[in-house]
């Protein structure tokens, strides 16, 4: 059983919702990332998504775009992202790590070299934003051999046929993008999310994490009542950006945000927030 599958099974048993923070590797500088990952876990994160910076992040809003640019200015890359995960793994063998990014750096590294290195670095899942299942067969078979879970995105306009397909090909969990737009955009319509989540659940048994538009403890709590996991990205990255290179302050602020979300997700009474 993969670390991701085991984690979701344990959380389900404990009737808890997975809290999944996202930060970009190397933002604002490479030294920040490993301590930040540990701080997030300590504050209550169950799984971590680590963004691989890319020069052309087409699916990201301005907050994550700028994070990518800051990381790239320090020559952060896919290989160096894997190095950071490896360093994190030295002190944490339990928390699943998913790396999230675009396909081209993987193409440049070569599929086999990438999968091999990712497995050695302790990566549990890979989410490639611009690689739909139709184009993924080569990479999927390598992932399977290496025991890495491919994480697929679902969107508000995903058809029944596609949801079934992702349910069959995906491992670990599915990531539901709760709104039409880029990361960090707009406001969530909870009724819409509820409706789509119900449809997805009828079509697949994979755990379902929801992200895009989760800004604070309140939205985390609301989404948490619908899904198995809540992903928070831009809200965290904004804190890192606002701290403008003051690492200690950034670490405190991202830990505080995650702790407040953890508290909201675990509060026994749904009216408590």
């Amino acid at each position, binding site marked *: 059983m993969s670390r991701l599958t085991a984690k979701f099974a344990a959380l389900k048993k404990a009737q808890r919702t997975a809290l999944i923070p996202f930060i970009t590797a190397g933002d604002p500088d490479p030294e920040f990332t490993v301590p930040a990952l540990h701080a997030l876990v300590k504050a209550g994160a169950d799984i971590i998504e680590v963004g691989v910076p*890319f*020069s*052309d*992040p*087409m*699916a*990201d*809003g*301005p907050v994550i*775009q700028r994070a990518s*640019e800051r990381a*790239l200015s320090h020559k952060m*890359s*896919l*290989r160096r992202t894997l190095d950071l995960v490896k360093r994190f793994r030295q002190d944490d063998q339990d928390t699943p790590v998913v790396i999230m990014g*675009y*396909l*081209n*750096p*993987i*193409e*440049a*590294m070569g599929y086999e070299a990438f999968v091999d290195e990712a497995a050695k670095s302790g990566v549990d899942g890979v989410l490639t*934003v*611009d*690689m*739909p299942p*139709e*184009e993924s067969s080569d990479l999927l078979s390598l992932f399977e051999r290496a025991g890495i879970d491919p994480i*697929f*995105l*679902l*969107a*508000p*306009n*995903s*058809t029944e046929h*596609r949801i079934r397909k992702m349910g069959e090909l995906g491992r670990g969990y599915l990531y539901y*993008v709760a709104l*039409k*737009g*880029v990361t960090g*955009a*707009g406001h969530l319509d909870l009724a819409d999310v509820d409706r789509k989540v119900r449809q997805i659940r009828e079509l697949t048994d994979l755990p379902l994490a929801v992200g895009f538009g989760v800004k604070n403890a309140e939205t985390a709590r609301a989404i948490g009542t619908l899904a198995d996991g809540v992903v928070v990205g831009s809200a965290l990255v904004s804190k890192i950006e606002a701290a403008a290179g003051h690492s200690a302050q950034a670490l405190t602020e991202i830990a505080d945000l995650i702790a407040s979300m953890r508290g909201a997700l675990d509060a026994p009474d749904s009216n408590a927030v």
Partner: protein
Amino acid sequence: MTTVQTATEPYNLPDERGHFGPYGGVFVAETLMEPIEELRLAYQRYMQDEEFVAELDRDLQHYVGRPSPIYHAERLSRHFGGAQIFLKREDLNHTGAHKVNNTIGQALLAKRMGKTRIIAETGAGQHGVATATVAARLGLECVVYMGEVDVARQAPNVLRMRLLGATVVPVTSGSKTLKDALNEAMRDWVTNVDNTFYIIGTVAGPHPYPAMVRDFQAVIGRESREQMMAQTGRLPDALVACVGGGSNAIGLFYPFIGDTAVKMVGVEAAGDGIETGRHSAPLSAGRPGVLHGNRTYLIEDDDGEIIETHSISAGLDYPGVGPEHAWLKDSGRAQYVSITDTEAMEGFHTLTRMEGIIPALESSHAVAYAMKLAPTLSKDQQILINLSGRGDKDINTIAVREGISL
């Protein structure tokens, strides 16, 4: 090497999912999969729809001014003392370039699909102007994304688009040029998919764009075949066209792919020279990767990050190239060469002074290569250059480069 076409095996790429061999495909985020499928079905349906095709033909004739003539550049041919040089005059189209052939087609499709809002990316501004033009005519809202750097260097086209009623949004992310404008247009599309049609200006992007834009531009090659037969009694020996994304080149090449005696040459922008690294020539000096929805040759670093490109011509200043060109290169059916900024300027001046035709800087790359090719051929051979656009838009760039104050 694979042969693109034999007598028994007609060229019928791309496949159902948009692949030209290993290139092309659909590499986009999940939210765009459904709208892309909707577009693919609409495109398939309307290209077979007699009424749609008739409306497109009428617009191409009466609004764009097609067919564009083929002109025998006799003085230029004599000057080089080799092959006869012919020009396909896409510069004479309404809005001054081949871009409008495609925007007319896509805008008519948008209208049929019930979309009320048009978005586009633009580099030099030619595609933006051609999009704003058709949006004005059809009464559609139009937003054009343009890199901040290009907004500054192509001011007259920015004004043109605004006069036509379009909103021009300067893009400040990344390298602030065409590729970033494309990223931003994709972000807009993913946010407004329900009412918005994205008119991509070149044969790149996810399937069906490379095939669809090619099909709208193929009118260039179809006319050229007929006109060359009528004017000279035979097909040309070589076709020469500039390649940025590659829409004018594919438009000319595509109807000739089966004519294996016709050589096809795509001319990329070598900028300061391939060896300097400051160029826009992915087919000449790049390697395959995935960007903007398709797999193709890219200019990237070892980590797969896209590198800033350079060309004197904003329309060629793009790190990728249409996937069909990638396939035509690998298969050997077409040949790809490159021309530096300096050589393109020579081509520009020579054509202007010898024939009284001011070419766009993009097209000047094709002219410059034809000037090299012509002397190596005999007088009874023929080269057809796609003169994809006129050069009025470039006079500021040329003035700055040559130290002329306007």
